[in-house]
């Protein structure tokens, strides 16, 4: 049954990739779609209101600065909403809000939600007011997701164009992403979630008298407004502390499955958009197949680690896979599928507790985040994550067989190589340095309140990998609501969002200016299975070279030592 579910998931993702990818291409290229009659007037109105001149085009530099300005503006607004939430009307009652909204927590949360990281150093039901969740977090889930998609569009355009000094208009891409993609899908998806039982109310927490006559207080709220967009925008931060494990956030296997599709379908489809717009459909499919291959490897390993009877329970006559931290309605199967999907797509809307995973299970999730979310990846960001690896592969392949390093007709000269290498090195540099600082300082080690030893190291590495990948999922045993972690994780989130996007956009600007070189016998073909295997190998090799020592001291040591 588990395998059937995995299979159906992949079939749906791959089946939708082409239609959705072509639709996204139409949105990106401002071509007609069936939604135009309804949305065109809104689009024009927004351009007039915001002072956007949609006919103007931006260079990669201006495009990036607009993306940055928009991010900064959103961060400021969200920070102000969070820090002033005590004056917002509506529930829940103050007595339940036990975690104070300190300045550093508000700043961390503001950065986190505007970078699609949605790392949460707090528990929703005992920190935030309903209106702070809606006006603050729901809005940023939309905006950060749509802004990411816009950058993805610009990156694709850069490779698709020739002799062009520009890569598009950020405001146009942002507004079209919101109106044509994110908002309508979210409206329909949210209604399905409510139908399945996700609450949408502003009621005070419900006091109930249970069947046995005890009292139980149940947190309520406008949960459904957040729970679909958190997945579609590849954000992932939940309404409640337990995120997707909470029965109100994720009441049925169907809501979970839909959430996983909401996460994976669009990033996967963007590979088809990429192939379509660069007029090399096969190149898009090859990269998508590399993603699927990595996905399947991770799924098989994690599935094996978690469905095996936990070795720690040997001799106790306890039957079944590892259910600690997992919900019965999902079982091990849907929990593992969700873990693999969220780890791969910078989403982090976990429905089981990763700190309770077996060492090999943790290893898989950690590796996927450290690789930089190449499998499907974040909305928009996934395109440049995988293409960067394709470019490294082209370079390595070119060196090996003595062919000109070229990708889709774009020459990779020393200047381009510099951006690519910087892109590849920035994640290990930030993650490993911050992890190093955390484990040698008292402030960093103070976060280890639940687990120690190799698992403690894994928790810290997981935290920075998650923030750098703009993922946001945590091994929640780490107490990360301290000034040290709120500040250092925010650094990782900012570099992971704006640093990587800057490099990707700069590169795409350079490609846009180039002409497309004709394919010759000296060209390494980039739309063959062999190239796919080369990209796969490069991803594994680069990942292993950067992270093996850290992983060896964490999950691998825990696996071997017990």
């Amino acid at each position, binding site marked *: 049954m588990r395998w059937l579910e995995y299979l159906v998931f992949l079939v749906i993702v791959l089946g939708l990739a082409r239609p959705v990818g072509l639709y996204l291409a139409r949105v990106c290229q401002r071509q007609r779609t069936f939604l135009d009659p309804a949305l065109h007037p809104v689009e024009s109105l927004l351009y007039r209101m915001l002072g956007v001149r949609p*006919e103007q085009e931006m260079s990669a530099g201006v495009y990036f600065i607009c993306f940055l300005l928009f991010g900064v503006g959103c961060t400021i607004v969200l920070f102000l909403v969070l820090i002033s939430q005590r004056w917002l009307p509506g529930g829940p009652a103050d007595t339940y809000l036990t975690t104070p909204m300190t300045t550093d927590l508000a700043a961390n949360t503001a950065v986190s939600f505007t970078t699609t990281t949605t790392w949460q150093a707090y528990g929703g039901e005992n920190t935030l007011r309903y209106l702070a969740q809606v006006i603050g977090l729901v809005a940023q889930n939309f905006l950060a997701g749509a802004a990411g998609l816009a950058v993805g569009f610009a990156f694709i355009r850069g490779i698709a164009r020739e002799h062009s000094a520009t890569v598009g208009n950020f*405001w146009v891409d942002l507004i079209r992403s919101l109106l044509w993609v994110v908002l309508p899908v979210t409206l329909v998806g949210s209604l399905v979630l409510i139908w399945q039982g*996700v609450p949408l109310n502003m009621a005070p927490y419900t*006091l109930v008298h249970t069947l046995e006559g005890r009292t139980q207080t149940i947190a309520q709220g406008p949960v459904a407004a957040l729970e679909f967009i958190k997945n579609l925008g590849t954000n992932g931060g939940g309404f*409640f*502390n337990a995120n997707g494990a909470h029965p109100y956030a994720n009441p049925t296997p169907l809501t979970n499955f839909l959430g996983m599709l909401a996460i994976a379908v669009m990033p996967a489809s963007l590979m088809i958009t990429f192939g379509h717009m660069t007029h090399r459909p096969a190149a898009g499919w090859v990269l998508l197949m590399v993603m699927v291959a990595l996905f399947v490897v991770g799924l098989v390993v994690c599935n094996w680690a978690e469905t095996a009877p936990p070795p720690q329970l040997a001799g106790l006559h*306890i039957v*079944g896979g590892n259910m600690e931290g997992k919900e019965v309605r999902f079982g091990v199967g849907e929990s593992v599928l969700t873990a693999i999907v969220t780890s791969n797509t910078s989403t982090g809307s976990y429905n089981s507790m990763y700190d309770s995973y077996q060492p090999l299970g943790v290893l898989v999730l950690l590796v996927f985040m450290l690789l930089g979310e190449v499998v499907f990846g974040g909305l928009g960001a996934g395109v440049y994550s995988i293409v960067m690896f394709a470019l490294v592969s082209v370079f390595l392949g070119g060196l090996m067989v003595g062919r000109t390093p070229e990708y889709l007709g774009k020459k990779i000269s020393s200047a381009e190589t510099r951006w690519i290498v910087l892109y590849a090195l920035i994640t290990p540099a930030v993650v490993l340095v911050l992890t190093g600082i955390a484990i040698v300082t008292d402030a960093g080690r103070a976060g280890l309140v639940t687990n120690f030893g190799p698992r403690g190291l894994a928790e810290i590495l997981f935290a920075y990998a998650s923030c750098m990948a703009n993922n946001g999922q945590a091994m929640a045993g780490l107490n990360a609501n301290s000034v040290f972690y709120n500040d250092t994780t925010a650094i990782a989130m900012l570099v992971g969002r704006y640093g990587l996007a800057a490099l990707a956009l700069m590169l795409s600007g350079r490609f846009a200016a180039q002409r497309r070189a004709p394919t010759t016998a000296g060209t390494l073909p980039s739309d063959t299975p062999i190239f796919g295997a080369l990209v796969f190998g490069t991803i594994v090799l680069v990942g292993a070279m950067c992270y093996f020592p850290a992983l060896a001291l964490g999950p691998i040591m825990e696996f071997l030592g017990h």
Partner: protein
Amino acid sequence: MLNITVSLVGTILIESPNWKIPANMSDSDEPAEITSQCASPRAPRARLSEQLRPAILSVLVLTLLTGCVFPLLLFAIARPLLPRQAGGTLVTRGAAVIGSELIGQEFTRPEYFQSRPSAAGSGYDGTSSGGTNLGPNNPKLMNGAADFAGIRQLAEEYRKRNGLASDAPIPIDAVTRSGSGLDPDITPANAELQISRVARARGLSEQAVRRLVANHTKGPQFGFLGNPRVSVLELNLALDQSLNQAAPPTLR
């Protein structure tokens, strides 16, 4: 590294001279010299200085659109259409709210089926969802601590409560805590092992209780999604209702 950083910042701010386009972006309202495949081949270039207004306005207007208009629209559609779900799928008996169909609650009396152990607050605290976050090799998970029952102890208690032999196999969901601490369900295998205890406490035949369990066992959704499960609150409510004569008198 510093060199690279400087050149990165430089490139973003003044653009790469390799592009052979004017570095000064403010005088580029005229058509770009080299364009093709653009939305329009003679598309005017956007000036950096003109982007501050859209930046500020778009943050405000789009926040209103997605953070206020969207939720209000969702409320307007969902509240009349799906009032029960929107309200949290609460279960009432008479005038009293006795729980939510979706949220697990704690049961300790022998005449009720029991939920999984919980790490939410002091157990099934609906305002404090969460799991143990203990690693599988953390000794506390197995052996427990002063205020925390380890898996060993939970297994021993479960066997004692249900009259099982000390080496009788038990399903793992009975001795592990869920991710939310509010798991409303148990596995059918877990329910099966509790049947004889519940039947005895209520003076019923095991067959009658087993039938009720079977009636309240949900298979995978649409035949392939998720796991078979038994909702504990639903089952216990059904026990009280359909077998009312045998219900203990202390019940509210």
